[in-house]
């Protein structure tokens, strides 16, 4: 019985030794792979450090880019306001000139009426006729004034068109605010990535360093479209809404 037990134990030992041998054989095959893995790690670590350094470098530059955008917005806002002040001043001058010219035109028309009466009183004297013709040739004031009023109206229209075009500043400032918001998001993500890789930089990147006003609001889809088409689409929607409202009011009346 004990002999049988010993044989069984020995068989188990051989089995285990066999397993061990297979393990060593497998280990021998695995060693080159582990070695290449270690080599790969050796090569990768500097690469990762390089990536980390690049991210740090990029991240540190983002606030500057963001602030540049804010500066551009402020500068265009200031320039637009200045241009609009000038346009405003021109428009005010045009309004004054138009007013003065209209008064002058009315006086000129009254003068013409008086002259016509005088003309009738002068009769058929050839000298008088000659002088009247000469006077009428020279008296082009009223016609000139009409031309001037037309030019003033054109200048006013041009001023309106300038204000329409200048609204591009508002649209671009909204687009820039949207870009800044995007930059801020990227900055936060990159900063958190650096913190994950190397938490010693936590203090350095704790603050985003981007100056985005708390009360900044923007439409990321704002577009500079001067065509009347957009407003016409809005008008169509409003008209449809009004029609529906009127119909419901009619229905209410007859119910």
């Amino acid at each position, binding site marked *: 019985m004990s002999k049988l037990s010993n044989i069984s134990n020995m068989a188990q030992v051989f089995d285990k030794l066999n397993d061990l041998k297979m393990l060593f054989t497998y280990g021998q095959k695995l060693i080159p792979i582990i070695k290449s893995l270690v080599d790969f790690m050796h090569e990768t670590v500097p690469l990762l450090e390089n990536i980390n350094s690049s991210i740090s470098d990029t991240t540190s530059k983002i606030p500057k880019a963001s602030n540049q955008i804010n500066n551009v917005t402020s500068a265009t*806002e200031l320039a*637009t*306001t200045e241009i*609009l002040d000038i*346009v*405003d001043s021109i*428009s*005010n001058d045009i*309004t004054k000139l138009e007013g003065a010219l209209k008064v002058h035109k009315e006086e000129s028309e009254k003068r013409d009426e008086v002259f016509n009466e005088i003309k009738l009183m002068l009769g058929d004297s050839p000298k008088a006729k000659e002088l009247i013709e000469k006077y009428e040739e020279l008296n082009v004031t009223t016609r000139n004034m009409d031309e001037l009023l037309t030019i003033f109206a054109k200048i006013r229209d041009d001023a*309106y068109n300038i*204000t*329409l075009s*200048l*609204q*591009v*500043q*508002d*649209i671009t*400032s*909204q687009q820039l605010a949207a870009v800044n918001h995007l930059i801020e998001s990227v900055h936060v993500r990159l900063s958190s990535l650096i913190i994950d890789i190397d938490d010693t930089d936590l203090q350095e990147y704790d603050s985003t360093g981007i100056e985005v006003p*708390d*009360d*900044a*609001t*923007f*439409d990321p*889809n*704002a*577009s*500079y*479209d*001067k065509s*009347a088409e*957009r*407003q016409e*689409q*809005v008008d169509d*929607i*409003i008209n449809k*809404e009004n029609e529906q409202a009127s119909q419901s009011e009619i229905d209410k009346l007859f119910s």
Partner: protein
Amino acid sequence: MKKVILVADDSPTIRKFVSFSLAMEGFEIIQVCDGMEALEKLPFGKIDLIITDLNMPNVDGYELIKTIRSNEEMKDIPIIILSSLGKSEEIAKGLSCGADSYLVKPFDPKRIQYEVAKYLN
């Protein structure tokens, strides 16, 4: 006596454009930079018409319109929305809050004069 128009927009240039377009038509313009400032100004003066943006800090345009419409003393003041938001759902939302007209940016100065004249002349 000049009619008074309150312009609420966080963009100083847009406030200036609107003022430019309407001041020469003989209106007095009061400028505010958001809905909250508009609500602060409204009870202290006779405002004949309001032009408001939708995207504004603190109190946005939708909230401003709803507050005005729910106030017994101010509910009848005509309101014109002036916004860069031009999608149908945004327009519908603005109108459902109680706005009378909706203009998209960039706006034509003559169109805003026409809209204002509709309510004030």
